[in-house]
C-alpha cells in the first residue's frame, strides 16, 4: 500500500462532508473546499517530468519512499485528488473501483468518462503503472 502524507481525512470523513448536499452546486462547493485539504507538494517537484500526460490542467505526481505526492493547479482536480488519495489504502485496482463508486455516490460521476483528455483516468493510469 502507498502512503499518502498530504491528507488527513479518510474516505468516511470525506463522504460525510457531502452527506447533506442537495444541489450540484453544494457538491462542487464541498469539492472545492476539499481541495484546500491537500497539503502542498514541494514546488521543486512541480516539474515537467513529474507531470501526468493527457490532462488539460497540469497534474503532478511523485512517488518517493512509497509516499505519493500529487498536486494540480486546477481546484476541482485537486479536490478529486484528495478523494483519490483517500482511496489508496487499498491495492490499486480495488482503490480505483472504490474511487469510481465514491464518485458515483457523491454525484460526480461524469468526471469518470474514459475520454482521453480526462485528467482523472490519466492519473489512475499513472498510479497503476507505479504498482
Amino acid at each position, binding site marked *: 500500500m502507498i502512503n499518502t502524507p498530504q491528507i488527513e481525512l479518510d474516505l468516511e470523513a470525506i463522504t460525510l462532508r457531502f452527506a447533506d448536499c442537495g444541489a450540484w452546486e453544494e457538491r462542487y462547493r464541498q469539492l472545492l473546499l476539499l481541495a484546500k485539504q491537500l497539503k502542498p507538494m514541494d514546488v521543486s517537484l512541480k516539474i515537467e517530468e513529474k507531470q501526468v500526460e493527457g490532462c488539460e490542467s497540469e497534474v503532478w505526481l511523485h512517488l518517493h519512499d512509497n509516499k505519493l505526492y500529487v498536486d494540480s493547479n486546477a481546484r476541482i482536480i485537486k479536490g478529486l485528488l484528495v478523494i483519490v488519495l483517500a482511496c489508496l489504502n487499498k491495492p490499486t485496482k480495488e482503490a480505483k473501483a472504490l474511487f469510481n463508486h465514491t464518485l458515483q455516490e457523491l454525484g460526480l460521476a461524469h468526471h469518470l*468518462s474514459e*475520454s482521453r*483528455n480526462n485528467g482523472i483516468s490519466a492519473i489512475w493510469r499513472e498510479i497503476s503503472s507505479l504498482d
Partner: protein
Amino acid sequence: MTSLKNTRYRQFFPSLNGNNQQIAYLDSAASTQVPEQVLSEIEQYYRQGHANVHRASHSFARNATNAFELARKTIAEFIGAKAQNIIFTSGTTQAVNLLADGLAHLVAEGDHIWLSEMEHHSNLVPWQQLAKRNNAELKVIPVLENGDIDLGYFRQHISNKCKIVAVTHVSNSIGAMQPIPELSRIAHQVGAKIVVDGAQAVAHLDIDVNRLGCDYYLFSGHKLYGPTGIGVLYGAEQALEQIQPSVFGGEMISKVSFEQSTWNTLPYRLEAGTPNIIGAIGLASAVQFLNQFPLKERLSVERSLLNYALQKLEQHPQVELVGKPMMRVGIIAFNLRNVHPQDAATLFDQYNVALRCGHHCAMPLSNTLSPQGSIRLSLGIYSEQSDIDQALDAINKVMELFDD
C-alpha cells in the same frame, strides 16, 4: 434456390425502392447504397447536438466523443480487432498513403516492395512513388491466365530484401480473392510487413484480421453501406507503432513549440485534424445494420446469387468472361463479343442496368487480361435475382442492336 428470391435485405435501402425500383444497381464495387438506419443515425446525431471530439468540457462534446469512440469499437470488432488498433482515415486511398509515407523508414535503397499485378491504383501508385523516392524496387506478383496470382512465382522470388508486401484481398476488377493467410506467412518468413487492401472484401467476407495474419488491413466506408469520406486502417499492435506520422496538426500532437513537436499516443497520433466524426458514426451504424443479420446466411445468399450470375454469363454464347479465378467474391468482369465495353455500358444504362465499364482503376491488370477494358457486374447485400435477370435481358437486347 429459394435463397435467390430472398428480398429480406433490399427493403432497408430507400434508394432501391420507390422511384428507383426499376433500376438494377450492379455497381456496388464502386460504392454501395446506404440503408435507412444509417441515414437516421446521421440525422439523429446532428439533431441531438454535435461538437468536436476529444476536448470534452461540455455535454455535446462528451456525447460526440463517446459516439466517436464507440464507433471505433464497433468497427474494430467487426473485423476481429480492438479499438486501439483502428485508425480512422478518409478512405482506403488515404490509408495506403499513410502507410507508404509512414513506413518509408523501413525501405532502404535496393530493398524490394512486392505488389500483385491486380492492384487497384490506390494500392499501387503510393508504393511506386515510395520505391522511386527511396531507390527501392517495385516487384510484381504476376497474374495467371485465369486471373489468380502466381503464388509459386512469388514464393520463388521473394527474398529478405523485401520489406513490404501490399496485396488486395479481393480484386476490384475481376473479383479474385487472394490467399491472404498464405501470403502473410510468406511475407513474415522474410521479415516483411504485409498490407492488405480490404476495400472489396470487407462487405462480402467474414473478416478476422487475426486469422488473416496481416500487419495492416484497410477499407472504405462507402463500400460497406456507410457514408463517403471515412475509411479504416487497422494495424496489429507492433505494426501500428512502426507507422511514423506524415500528416500533422490538431489532436495528433502532444506538445508544440516552434522548435519542435512531440506526438500524441496511438491511435490519435495518426489522426491529424478534426476526424470525420459523422463518417465514423455512420459507418458504425452500417456495421450494426449488418450485424443484425446472421453472418453465414448473409454471405451465403450473396454467394448463391453470384454463382447464379456466373453460371448464366458463362453459358451465354456472346459473353466472354474476363478472369476465371478459383475463389471469386462479389464481382464478375466480362465482355460482349465484338462490343466495346463502353458501348455496352451506355446501352445498359438505357435498360436501367447500372454497372461500370473500363479499366476499373487497375490498368496493369486490364492491359494483361483485356486491353480494351471490361464490363463489371458487382453485388451488394440488396442485390436480387431480378437484378441479374434484368442484366441478362439487357445483354440480349444489346447484342440484338449490335447485330445490324
